[in-house]
């Protein structure tokens, strides 16, 4: 066999799905992935897909069509159909306001006051929010076998906010910490069942959302309430895991890495260089393009520049920091994929794999 018979791969030769998964594990990529991990759905996307909020939250076909715009129209390597954050809470009988076309759903009443009153309903995974989300994942898997599909789970801590009310939940971390531990213990199976069901339906990875950010609690509180539970999740989740935690998290990234997450999806309050320095090779990083200033109010050029900044920091993939405002323009979001392509073209010194080191001197890239 000679090299002439088998020409070297070059340029973009991985499928988006393979690229996404390799980057998630910190592996080799032909191009740095540009992704949706939280929602990139916009009012424009709803017109394109002929599928709009709020119907798309509870209709598998509409949800799948809308989710697909991330790949079809924005060129992203992933799709993510669970746009909202009510998947588990709604199926656990929390009162959900499903929003309007231009407003996001929210849990508007809290139903739990005692962890010992909680039980996962026997038909939990058959309830409306799961029927839609799992149905959408199955449709997307069938229609896009080569595109990464991200499943989204609210962890026991964040489901606790929905079920108990964030104010009561946070106060009890001080007034009655054992009660909070008990809440986490009883709610974890609901989150774990959600993760398993989404993986089984065809999701490639689970983004696990537990909001223990600096704007809310101390890093010690993450350590005391969540670290061990998150370590347990790694052993039981059964697929690649991405942690999402909103806001400023620099002072707890080390704990996240200790918890064993494959990847951390971080927000714009965190300096990507600092995040990379802390995470090292222990955990991949995806992020962290600012929503309000860059994506919603900014231009294509602003987004492109922000993406280049985060890519130059050495993160494994670029994505909006969280769900984008619905009025965000798709022409701005297009810079996510364009910047990842251009960055990769400039950082593929052997023509094959992207490296975050400076290009080799004398190479033509």
């Amino acid at each position, binding site marked *: 066999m000679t090299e002439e018979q088998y020409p070297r791969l070059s340029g973009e030769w991985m499928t988006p799905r393979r690229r996404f998964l390799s980057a998630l594990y910190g592996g080799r990529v032909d191009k740095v992935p540009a992704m949706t991990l939280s929602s990139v759905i916009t009012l424009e996307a709803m017109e394109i897909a002929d599928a709009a909020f709020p119907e798309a939250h509870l209709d598998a076909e509409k949800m799948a069509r809308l989710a697909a715009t991330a790949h079809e129209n924005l060129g992203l390597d992933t799709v993510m159909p669970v746009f909202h954050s009510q998947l588990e809470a709604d199926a656990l009988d929390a009162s959900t*306001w499903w*929003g309007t076309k231009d*407003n*996001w759903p*929210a*849990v*508007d009443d809290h139903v739990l006051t005692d962890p010992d009153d909680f039980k996962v309903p026997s038909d939990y995974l058959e309830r409306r929010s799961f029927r839609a989300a799992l149905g959408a994942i199955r449709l997307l898997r069938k229609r896009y076998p080569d595109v990464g599909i991200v499943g989204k789970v609210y962890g026991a801590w964040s489901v606790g906010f929905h079920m108990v009310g*964030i*104010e009561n939940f*946070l*106060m009890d*971390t*001080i*007034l009655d910490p054992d009660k909070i531990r008990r809440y986490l213990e009883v709610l974890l199976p609901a989150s774990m069942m959600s993760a398993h069901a989404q993986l089984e339906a065809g999701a490639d990875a689970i983004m696990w959302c537990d909001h223990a950010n*600096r*704007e*809310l*609690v*101390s890093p010690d*509180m993450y350590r005391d309430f969540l670290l061990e539970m998150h370590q347990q999740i790694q052993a039981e989740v059964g697929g690649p895991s991405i942690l999402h935690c*909103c*806001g400023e998290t620099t002072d707890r990234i080390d704990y996240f890495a200790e918890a064993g997450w494959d990847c951390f999806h971080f927000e714009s309050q965190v300096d990507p260089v600092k995040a990379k320095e802390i995470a090292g090779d222990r955990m991949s990083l995806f992020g962290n393009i600012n*929503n*309000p*200033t860059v994506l*919603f*109010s900014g231009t294509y050029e602003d987004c492109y520049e922000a993406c280049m900044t985060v890519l130059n920091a050495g993160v494994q993939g670029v994505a909006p*920091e*969280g*769900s*984008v*405002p*619905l*009025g965000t323009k798709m022409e701005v979001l297009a810079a996510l994929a364009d910047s990842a392509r251009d960055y990769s073209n400039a950082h593929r010194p052997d023509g094959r794999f992207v490296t975050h080191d400076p290009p080799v001197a004398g190479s033509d890239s």
Partner: protein
Amino acid sequence: MVQLSGIANDTIRAEIEEFLERPEEIERNVELFSRASPEMQDIAAALIEGDNVTVDRLTSKALADGVHALEIMDDGLIAGMGIVGIKFREGYVFVPEVLVSARAMKAGMAHIEPILAASGVEPIGTVIMGTVQGDLHDIGKNLCIMMLRGGGFTVIDLGVNTSPDEFLAAVKDSEARLIGMSALLTTTMPNMARTVEAFKDAGLREQVRFMVGGAPVTPEFGEEVGADGYGKDALACVALAKQLALDVRR
């Protein structure tokens, strides 16, 4: 060098020594607590420790002993909450600790507010507060409201998921000229701009002043949406409201 010896309460002295760093804040608090009676210092210390039962008991006792409600509010409750606010800003405590102290402050204010209302003390101004449309988070807003009320403002609380029309209606129905908008989600922050726009469309923009805040909100974003000021936390919110209240009175 400031003298802590004038402060009788051990907790208050330790709090000032351990957590206050800015010279002007140390000086102000030492002066405030040295002037405050030991009973007021005890109320402040219990509030800092989040002990609502003790705050309730001590406030009730102080009123029964003839201490003026305003003195209890200023030298006990607000003074204690001021220390909590500084510790929060500096990252020594987080939302749970602030909420527990806020609960203690509420326990004290439950005695104070009816007395102040009946005595006809003029408020500094009236503020309309609401979390913007699509957003159901209200911790930050509620903390601001508590501090605004403690700071001498009357507050009209529109709650969560407040549409631009509801803000407009509240201004038309009241004499309030200060509006505070809160958002916790980057997805709902654009509704701050929509609210400001609605006031422009209604021809009321020049008559009111907008304050914005919330975890993802920045001063730059506030400027972008046309707000008159940004408050990073509840303490900053009160300072901003006082400044803007002067503005709307002119």
